[in-house]
């Protein structure tokens, strides 16, 4: 009996040591494992809708140019070497480089660019990227002219996000075009196991030079704790993480954490069609009543930038002239008294979906401190969105992303977006006109001034009670070098390198 036990123990130990050798201690120097939260639903260059999809497609597909979404930088050449805008702002001409090829080796020509632009134009998913585009002309194989109906300044940033796909490949097989894409970017699609992972491989003939990292695997890990453990074991080299995993990962000397600013905003939306929120003083009072620092510490583990302005600080058009609300409960009480509100006053329900419930709880407490009582009503996400967009609520808390050009913020203010993203149901002729005039202005400085007016007005009227801009957090192996993450935190594996 004793002998059996010893043998069993020996076998166990042998098995353990053997398996230790099988598990990689650290990844090979030319491959990278990235963890993502969810599987990709599609690999279509234009008909995608989620963050994981755009993050992956950005490696497979190249764009005409690269433009930092903060609007402060000149666009960098990619497939287009240079561009011109006509005087009146209705015509954008792109000159393509001649050495760019798709992954099957065929050259990228003006016909492919026209095809891709039209793909976006027709797309219910990403059509807004080419808003204003009327027709596309190709005078020769390497020139593309975009005609706009009217001058529309946000066009440039939008068109810079269009993935350039192969027209010939689409015509050969529209199914393969989606399921087995041939792209124009630095990485080739290799294959995927649904629900588990997706593999990319360096495209060595990429016109900017072969990428340094040769093989990329996206592993789908939905649980944030699991992701944090996989980062520590070295099974995963790079991942976007939740703020709740920060502490644990910061303690590990092999892991670096980087923060990327985003333009997404967490806010309290008030239904301006309902009392007492139709009174600007009440809205200002609510803006003063919220302790934003405290909320960021509780709900975001400190990983968000406090900002009462819907326009984030990195965005084009932001300025210090735009008023910032700070925590001032006394001022809030004064304003409420001026508005004729007798406290304690019953505000009704704060409408939230489960994932925003913690925000509502903090806000509820802050409002109570100034004499505004509210219950929290948690609804299933789709039911919540239904109520929010149809105006069947009085006050709500949520997080929204209107990324891209600053002009995208028109969705939160213009009358035509009541029923979609204008949750405050704000309707003001002057505001509508300002947003329209911003699109027609081709001079950057003047355009910034219009946005300055817009956000000053939005802040003075306290249309929303914006709380903060959450940060996107990335954790990665200390031997991996990644350039600084810019606004929205889009990343390009082409720029990554193992040291």
């Amino acid at each position, binding site marked *: 009996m004793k002998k059996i036990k010893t043998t069993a123990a020996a076998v166990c130990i042998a098995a353990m040591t053997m*398996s230790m050798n099988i598990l990689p201690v650290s990844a090979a120097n030319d491959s990278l494992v990235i963890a993502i939260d969810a599987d990709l639903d599609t690999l279509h260059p234009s008909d995608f809708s989620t963050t994981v999809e755009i993050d992956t497609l950005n490696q497979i597909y190249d764009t005409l140019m690269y433009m930092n979404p903060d609007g402060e930088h000149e666009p960098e050449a990619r497939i287009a070497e240079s561009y011109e805008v006509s005087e009146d702002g209705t015509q954008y001409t792109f000159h393509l480089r001649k050495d760019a090829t798709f992954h099957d080796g065929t050259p990228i020509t003006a016909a492919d660019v026209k095809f891709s632009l039209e793909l976006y134009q027709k797309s219910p998913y990403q059509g807004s990227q080419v808003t204003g585009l009327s027709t596309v002309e190709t005078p020769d194989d390497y020139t593309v002219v975009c005609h706009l109906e009217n001058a529309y300044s946000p066009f440039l940033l939008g068109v810079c996000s269009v993935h350039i796909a192969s027209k010939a490949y689409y015509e050969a097989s529209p199914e393969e075009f989606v399921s087995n894409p041939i792209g124009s970017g630095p990485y080739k699609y290799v294959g995927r196991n649904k*629900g588990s992972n997706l593999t990319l491989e360096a495209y060595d003939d990429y016109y900017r030079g072969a990428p340094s990292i040769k093989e990329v695997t996206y*592993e789908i890990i939905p649980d944030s704790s699991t992701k944090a453990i996989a980062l520590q074991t070295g*099974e995963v080299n790079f991942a976007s993480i939740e703020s709740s995993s920060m502490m644990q990962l910061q303690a590990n000397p092999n892991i670096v954490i980087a923060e990327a600013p985003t333009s997404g905003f967490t806010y309290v939306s008030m239904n301006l069609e309902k009392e007492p929120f139709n009174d600007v003083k009440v809205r200002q009072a609510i803006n003063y009543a919220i302790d934003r620092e405290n909320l960021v510490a509780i709900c975001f583990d400190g990983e968000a930038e406090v900002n009462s302005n819907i326009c984030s600080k990195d965005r084009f058009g932001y300025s210090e002239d735009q008023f910032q609300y700070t925590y001032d409960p006394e001022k809030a009480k004064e304003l409420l008294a001026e508005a004729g509100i007798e406290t304690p006053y019953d505000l009704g329900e704060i409408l939230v979906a489960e994932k925003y419930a913690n925000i509502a709880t903090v806000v509820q407490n802050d409002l109570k401190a100034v004499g505004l009582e509210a219950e929290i009503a948690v609804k299933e996400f*789709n039911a919540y*969105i*239904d109520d929010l967009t149809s105006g069947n609520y009085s006050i709500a808390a949520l997080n929204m992303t209107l990324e891209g050009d600053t002009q995208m913020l028109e969705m939160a203010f213009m009358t035509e977006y009541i029923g979609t*993203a204008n949750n405050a149901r704000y309707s003001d002729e002057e505001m509508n006109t300002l947003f329209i005039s911003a699109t027609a202005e081709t001079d950057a400085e003047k355009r910034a001034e219009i946005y300055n007016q817009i956000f000053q007005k939005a802040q003075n009227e306290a249309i929303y009670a914006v709380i903060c801009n959450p940060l996107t957090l990335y954790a990665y192996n200390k031997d991996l070098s990644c350039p600084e993450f810019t606004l929205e935190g889009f990343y390009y594996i082409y720029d990554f390198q193992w040291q």
Partner: protein
Amino acid sequence: MGKYAGKRLLYMIPVLLGVSFLVFTILSLTPGDPGSIILGITAKPEDIAALNAEFGYDQPFLIRFFNYIGDIIFHFDLGTSYQSRQPVIEDIMARFPNTLKLTIFSMSVSSIVGISLGIISAVRQYSTLDHICVVTALIFASIPGFWLGLMLMLIFSLKLRILPSYGAGTLKHFILPTLTVSMTSAAGLLRLTRSAMLETVRQEYIRTAKAKGASEKRIIWKHALRNALLPVITTLGTSFGASLGGAIIAETVFAMPGMGTLITTAIRQKDIPVVMGATLFLATLFSLIILIVDLLYAVIDPRIKAKYQSGGKRRD
């Protein structure tokens, strides 16, 4: 017995129709439409409407239901996912093998551990071993699955570095999820087997067997166990069927693509074809398993076998 099985197979048709109608109705009654869920809050209403029309979601509820059932019956087609626009059967087939493996592994481990410890516990009632088994079972039955999974991962993946923390690529990936699922269910089986055995041991035929001088081994294996196993097998069958629905917690914690996460994700996205396809697939399997369990009774219990025989004749 063949006739009985055939009849039971026919009963499955109304059951499956009922299941599909019920699930389809509930899905249609929940708020939200696929178009606005996919395109999000910032989408234009006309884009949302166009997408819904493309999915046929603009049609009235009953028409959509009959179209769906018609496609299954006449074209053997479970439909196309709203989200991925790929055939639903592909989504199911990419995930079902993982779930099936995990189910078989964890059921094997839990029945071997649970039943054998349950028998020992019952036979040596009030011994130290019995006390240890009962207390351990109580602890494991009360531990939440996600916590157990994370603890196992912390120990075996992070500290010892001998097992992978996520994925489903190799057999090694299944060790931790199997442990997570089977610990809890083994605890339940242990308690069930123990109490069933204790009850049987007190029956008069056991006393008779003892009186006629049968060995203890024979009494336990031949007389007590066979009778005690009936409720255990019922539980095993239903829990086997239920776990084919996916061990959602183990799947999520260990990032293992399985049926559970497929269905929960699809419900959240209101991907009706995926939810329906997966539910029908599982309902069919579940019905088949329950049928097998019923037939197994006959193997274990001759009284039930006798009932299946034509005319209910008995060979005495």
